[in-house]
């Protein structure tokens, strides 16, 4: 029941591409929001809270995304929570992304020279103002390349979500290739589509980085 590669197969891949974009966007947003929360916990004044954030980051960085997604999809269902595949994938990718982003941002804040903290204190700025006016702008510039670099990784990692049955670009590639037996052409096209998504992101991050450096 296979059929020759037809125009509609490309349409199927484009629909998959749309889902990959949606899933990536949701995962980006989730990772950034959750990442900020984890960053706040990581920089909390209470040692217990800092410790919790530390454990969260390192457990997630040390476990495979595939396992996390399967836990979200099937694990929650075992406790009676019926989570739709794309919801499980979004939550899983966000949790996974937040562990990396908060770590990246924590590093960026630490990378701001200590003299900047001391100088702004000497100027009599409150701790909130010091962070907002002096440290954050500098940390922001430092964090852009690794942040975008990680978001590109996250975008490509959405392909792992196919294991939960989310029909995104990679799953559509499996489906189309097995219905046509045209593995090489289908996967070449899919790699091209992923590249078209990822390259502009990388390019934009480089531009942003240069313009921010100039502004400084």
């Amino acid at each position, binding site marked *: *029941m*296979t*059929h*020759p590669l*037809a125009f*509609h*197969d490309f*349409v*199927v891949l484009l629909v998959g591409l749309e889902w990959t974009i949606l899933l990536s966007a949701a995962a980006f947003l989730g990772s950034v929001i959750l990442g900020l*929360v984890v960053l*706040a*916990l990581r*920089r*909390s*004044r*209470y040692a217990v*809270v800092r410790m919790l954030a530390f454990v969260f980051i390192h457990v997630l960085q040390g476990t495979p995304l595939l396992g996390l997604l399967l836990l979200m999809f*099937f694990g929650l*269902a*075992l*406790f*009676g929570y*019926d989570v739709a595949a794309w919801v499980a994938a979004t939550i899983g990718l966000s949790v996974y992304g937040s562990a990396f982003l908060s770590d990246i941002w924590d590093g960026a804040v630490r990378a701001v020279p200590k003299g900047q903290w001391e100088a702004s204190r000497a100027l009599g700025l409150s701790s909130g103002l010091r962070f907002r006016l002096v440290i954050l702008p500098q940390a922001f510039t430092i964090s852009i390349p690794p942040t975008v670099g990680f978001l590109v990784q996250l975008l490509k990692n959405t392909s792992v979500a*196919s*294991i*939960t*049955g989310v*029909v995104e670009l990679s799953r559509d590639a*499996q*489906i*189309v*290739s*097995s*219905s046509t*037996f045209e*593995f090489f052409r289908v996967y070449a096209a899919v790699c091209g589509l992923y590249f078209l998504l990822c390259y502009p992101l990388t390019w934009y991050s480089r531009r942003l980085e240069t313009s921010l450096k100039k502004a400084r």
Partner: protein
Amino acid sequence: MSPSRMVLRAALLVVASLLLITAQAPAAKADLLKDILDRGVIRIGTTMDNPPYGSYDAAGKPVGFDIEFGQMIGQAMGVKVEVVSQVMANRIPMLLTKKVDILVSSFGLVPSRALQVMYSEPYTNNLEALWGPASIKITGPNDLGTLKIAAGVGTIQDKALTAMAPKANIVRFDSDATTVTAYVSGQADLMVGPATLAKQVNDAYPQHKLEMKFPLLSGTSHIGVPQGEFTLLQFLNTYIYYLRVNNLLQPLTLKYFGQDLGNLPPF
């Protein structure tokens, strides 16, 4: 209150409410057949990258034996069919976690699987075998040596070959499609799979013509039903018996397998 403290409180609140919901989750033990009839929808798990059982045609419409058979089941029950596209390796978890009501997914017989799910009467038979090019001479499991054999992970043919030849060099893949790719691209010397798959390979790649080396087991397909749902199982068995005794599965079998259903032994 400092921001981190507020976040901490919110997180505690979420955890507490989740625990509360879990504690109150009703231990509902309703009858699945009745649930499906009340709902008016049956959720059928089917693998969509597995022609001729489930795939898409050139117009993007779902086609395949399991798709049409699933529609027939829905019609017989008078309910709508919701096809849930699933991955081969996740078939049993999908059923166990109630994400689908039944599996119509070229689900083959393995005794150990029957400890977790119930099987219906068989509705197809598709010989599972070891396949390879004419240039490789093999007559039985002892001739395999270090030849690389491609197999779909966790499929009945994978389990059967592993039992027959524990030392065989089996390379496992996610689906029949990737298994075929491994063979066609030369990553594997041989492959295991159903006769229908070998026929499709031979149609698509005449230069990589497969011939049967030795049979593994009869590939009967069954409907997978959650453990303990006897009324639903009884309905499905009754329906399959009705189809078989009236020869109503024959057109579907001819259409998708190009051969007779043959003599399916009863369960």
